Each structure stands twice: as C-alpha cells, then as structure tokens.
C-alpha cells in the first residue's frame, strides 16, 4: 500500500446527503436518482462513471447546480443549494463552477478571448480586468497565439482548451467536465487529459463525468453509479484500506 495515497483530504466542497431526483416522462415517473450520498473535498480528482441510464447525467446536473434535487440536501461550500431559485443558482454556477462540455459549447461568433470573458461579464468585472484575466488563462492553457480566433478557426483540441480556459477564468471551486474527450481523437484526448491532470496538480478540484474506463483511470477517485444509486466509491475502499494500514503500521 502506497502510504502517499493516504494523505488527508482538504475541506469539504460538496456535501450531498441522500438526494433523489424524479421527473415525469409522459405518464411515467422516472426515478433518476434514488438516494445518493457523496462528499467531495478540495483538490480531489474524481470521476463519476456509469452506464447510460444510471443517473450519471442527472447527478452531474445536480453537482453543477443546473438543477435542484427532489429531496435530500445539497451543500456547496456550506451553502444550501437545494432550496435556491434560478438566479441564485446562476450566481453559484458563475462563481463556483467551471463547466467543460463534450461539445465544447463555445459561442460561434465570439473570439477565444470573447468566449473566455463571458463568465467575467456575468460576474460584473470591468473590461480591462476581464481582458487581462482572460488573456492570462488562455496563455496558461497554451493558446496565447489563438486569442483572436473564432471557434471555427480552431482545431477540436484547441476549442476544448478555450472551453477549459473559460471554466477556469473565475477561479471556481470545482471544474466539472462532462465527457471532455468525447468529441476528440485519442491523441488530442490525451492532451486534454494531461491538461486536466495539470490543473489538478496545481490545486484545482476536478470532477469528470465519463463512461470510458481509461478516461476515468486518470482520476484519483472513482464513483460508480448504477440505477440511480452509488454502486462503488473508491474513496470508501481506500479509507478502509488506509485505516487498516495505519493500524497495522502502528501495531
């Protein structure tokens, strides 16, 4: 057992307690989440895995504050998100969460710089600071020479880098990446994964949502979902191991 992996975690960022989500689809009620409990600490690198229909997307929408649970409690940095209204959630998403989508979701008519500035506009940052900060993160992801290009003038990997820069620009508490390599060839995908790894090493909290095991393998912790419940959480296994490890080393 590698004792390095047993180092203590940072403070809790996300605290989900027994949340459920059901919605009506036609005459039927779909139970997407049937009681999920999950804690995510600062500077974790976590992958949420599961087959389609497992509630993976629904959980991601919850984690990203795009939706609120039907029951249960969700605290983000100590704030109760489960009872917030649309505009309050928008505020949390703007300040605390950086989204990276499978389809990049860049504004087609804006330059890289314009796309990265968007969250700062919604945060009410003045134009000079905006441009300065957006340019800085673009340089950080290696796109210093692509600032004034529009998305259709960029390769897929470059587009995803712009999207990651946009996710980073407001210094969010978590980066939420939904199948970030799904639309990329494997080589570019590896580059993007290396970039996410790098962000994690620099102290960011990264949450991956994916169904590909080799992508999930980059994460330090994996949560498997099936039929709306957590089937396996590697952290709990690890904690058990560390616990016995420390006992055995003391004993």
């Amino acid at each position: 057992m590698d004792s390095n992996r047993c180092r203590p975690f940072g403070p809790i960022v996300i605290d989900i307690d027994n949340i459920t989500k059901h919605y009506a689809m036609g005459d039927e009620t779909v139970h997407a989440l049937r009681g999920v409990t999950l804690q995510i600490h600062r500077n974790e690198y976590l992958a949420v895995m599961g087959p389609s229909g497992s509630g993976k997307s629904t959980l991601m929408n919850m984690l990203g504050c795009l939706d609120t649970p039907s029951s249960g409690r969700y605290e983000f940095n100590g704030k109760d998100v489960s009872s917030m209204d649309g505009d309050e959630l928008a505020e949390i998403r703007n300040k605390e969460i950086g989204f990276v989508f499978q389809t990049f979701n860049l504004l087609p008519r804006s330059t890289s710089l314009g796309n990265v500035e968007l969250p700062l506009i919604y945060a009410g940052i003045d134009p000079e600071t905006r441009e300065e900060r957006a340019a800085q993160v673009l340089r950080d992801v290696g796109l210093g020479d692509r600032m004034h290009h529009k998305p259709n003038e960029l390769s897929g990997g470059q587009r995803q880098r712009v999207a990651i820069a946009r996710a980073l620009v407001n210094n969010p508490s978590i980066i939420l990446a939904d199948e970030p390599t799904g639309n990329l060839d494997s080589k570019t995908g590896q580059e993007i994964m290396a970039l996410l790894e790098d962000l994690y090493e620099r102290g960011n909290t990264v949450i991956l949502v994916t169904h590909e095991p080799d992508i999930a393998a980059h994460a330090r912790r994996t949560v498997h979902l099936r039929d709306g419940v957590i089937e396996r959480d590697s952290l709990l296994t690890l904690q058990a191991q560390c616990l016995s490890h420390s006992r055995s080393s003391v004993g």
Partner: protein
Amino acid sequence: MKRLVYELSESWKIALAQMQANKTRSMLTALGVIIGIVAVTLMGTAISGIQKGFDKSMSILGDDVLYVSQFPWARVPDWWNYRDRREIKTQYAQTLNRLIDSTPNSNLIVAVPTSNIAKSVKYADNQVTNIFIQGTTSDYPLISVVDFTHGRFFNEMETKSAANVCLLGYDVADALFPSGSPINKEVLISGQAFKVIGVGSRQGSFLGLFSLDSIVMVPLPTFQRYFSAKSESDVRVKIRDKSKLGDAKDELTGLMRRVRALPPEKKNDFDINEQQAFKSTLDPVKNSIAIAGLFITGLSLFVGAIGIMNITFVSVKERTKEIGTRKALGARRRTILLQFLIESTALCIVGGAIGLTFAYALCFGIEHAFPSFPIQFSLGLVLTSMIVSVLTGLISGFAPAWSASRLNPVTALRYE
C-alpha cells in the same frame, strides 16, 4: 449596476454580430419595419403639412379680425331663413368707424370695407379669367398683412379720388407679365384701364381651395364705379385683444344693429364671422383624416412587428443550446431577456433608420416635384419614428425573449 452595463454592451455586440451573420434574414425582417416606418412617417409629414397649410390659411384670415357678412360661413340647414337678408353695404364701415371712435375703451380698432367680384384681366395678348377683383380702402393694410415683391399699396388720395390703380396678386402678375416688371404698366379689367402700382408676394392657396394669388386689388370707389353690379361686400373689423373675442363680437353686434336700425324684437339680419368658424368646421375633418391615416399606416408597422416577433422566436429556438451554455456560465434570467430584447430592438432601430432615410428622400422628392403639396418633415417626427421603432422592437421581442429567459438550463443544454 455595473454588471448590467457590461451585460448590455455585450448584448449589443452579439446583436450586431447576429445581424451580420444572418444578413439576408435580418434585411427581410427589417423590411417590414422599414415599410411600416416609411408609411407612418409619410403620413405624419402629410398630417403636419395639412396642419401647417391650415394654420397658414387661417393666419391670412387673421385671428384678430371679425367679418361682418350677409351670411354665416358655416353651413346652415335652414338657408331659407337667411335668403331675404339685406346686403352688407360698404358705407357701414364709415359709420362703424365713427361709432368705434366715440366709444371709450372699445374692443374694436378699425373697420374696413371690401367688395369682391370675379372678372377677367388682360395685358397685351395675355388674358387671365375668373380673377378675384377686390375693392377696398387704403386702411386695408391695417387689418391684414400685405407683402409686396414690387411697389406699394394704394394711398388715401388714390382711394378718395377713385384712381384707376391696382395691385396684382402674384399669379396674375406672373401670367400677364412673364418677363419684365408690371409696375406702371396698364392692364385692362373688363375693358377698363388700370395702372399697376404693386405686386403681391406669393401667398399660396386658402386650404387648397382657391389661390390667394389670383387676386387684383383696386380702390373701393373705383370698384364701385365699374363693378358694383352683382358684387358682394363685407366689412372687416380688427379687434384690440384676441382674448376678448367674445366681448368684441358682442360689441360689434350691438353696433351693427344700430347701423341697421333693427328694433329689439327683430333678429340679427347679418352675421359676424371669424376664422374660428372654419376651425370648428374643419378640425373634426382634419382629425379624422389623421386618425384614419395613422391607423391604416400603423397596420403596416404592426405587420412588420409580427415579422420581428417571428424571427426572434426562430432565433431563440435555434440558439437554445447557446442559451443553455450562457445560463451554465452564470447568465441570469434578466441577462437572457435583455439579450433578445436588444436583438429585436436593434433590428427595429436599423429598420427605422433606413425607413426614415427613405421617407426623407421621398419627402424631398415630393416637395420638389409638387411644391404645393403640403408636406412637412421635422425633427420631432424623426424622434417620434425612432421611439416608435424602439417600442416596436421591445414589444415584439418581449414574448420570445421572455420564453428564452425561462428556459430550463438542463433542457436547453441538451437541445440539439
């Protein structure tokens, strides 16, 4: 607050980029607004032109002049009751002036007689027919503004001595003397020779009904010597204070009853007319033309607004995913609402500006092609049209913008 400003300026940029990206679609949509604004603006210019022409005609009558006439100006249903009225005699003016002078604090200033008849006027080979010949005294300039391009009005001497002198209206002078000055030339009015001593400046027409420039003025005694048969006369009285029009009218009625020696039991057998009579007859007509015109042209603007609403709905639909992304990045409902409102408003402003330019060019053309056509382009009209454009954009964009702002971010992000 600052945040709102940044959001607004970003929305403007997006709106303009959107228009550039969909040039054909934006132009076609804006065309509806362009046509609407052209129609409404032209109607507006026509209405204010009519108003201006009306005001001008009224100012020629004078808002401080009472007309003592045989019949009322307004149409009366019981015309047979007026049939047997005695004519107004020009001598009344002298009597009235004497009475006015002897009344302390009179509301009236001076009475001037005029007599009118239609005759033909000739100079050398040129002849104009059906010209309004007006006989009056040298006091006439006291009650009405008389502008000259050449010469002067006749003086008291010429009036008293019944001199054969005359003033030509602009059109008459123009027709009889296509080249050269008419001053001191002799024209023939139904065979009698008159020396031209003045030419009036251009006045236009009275409510577009008859030209005020097809007139010849002669001294009243001269008029009576040659044309008194079948002529019509009235007496015009200038009042001292416009705000005491009613008092002045009462006073003049009293004086006229004395002049006509009417016993108390008899009704007035004359009428005191003023421009107000025209106003009250014509105002309802003018207003209903304005309302009907604006309503019909407003319909075309309404159709344009529907086009804007439609295209904004299309825009919201095809950019659902973008709306989802913006919401994920922290756009609030207000942000999305404003963005689409600004897009529809920007289209309307562009349409409105193009429409105004067209309308201005058309007005300019019409003014040059038909100088007499009443048309009036003003800054107020420009402002009104732009405000109307902005309102059109806001109103037609509201429903689609509202639906966009209410989209659920999860559904919007999943939309393909």
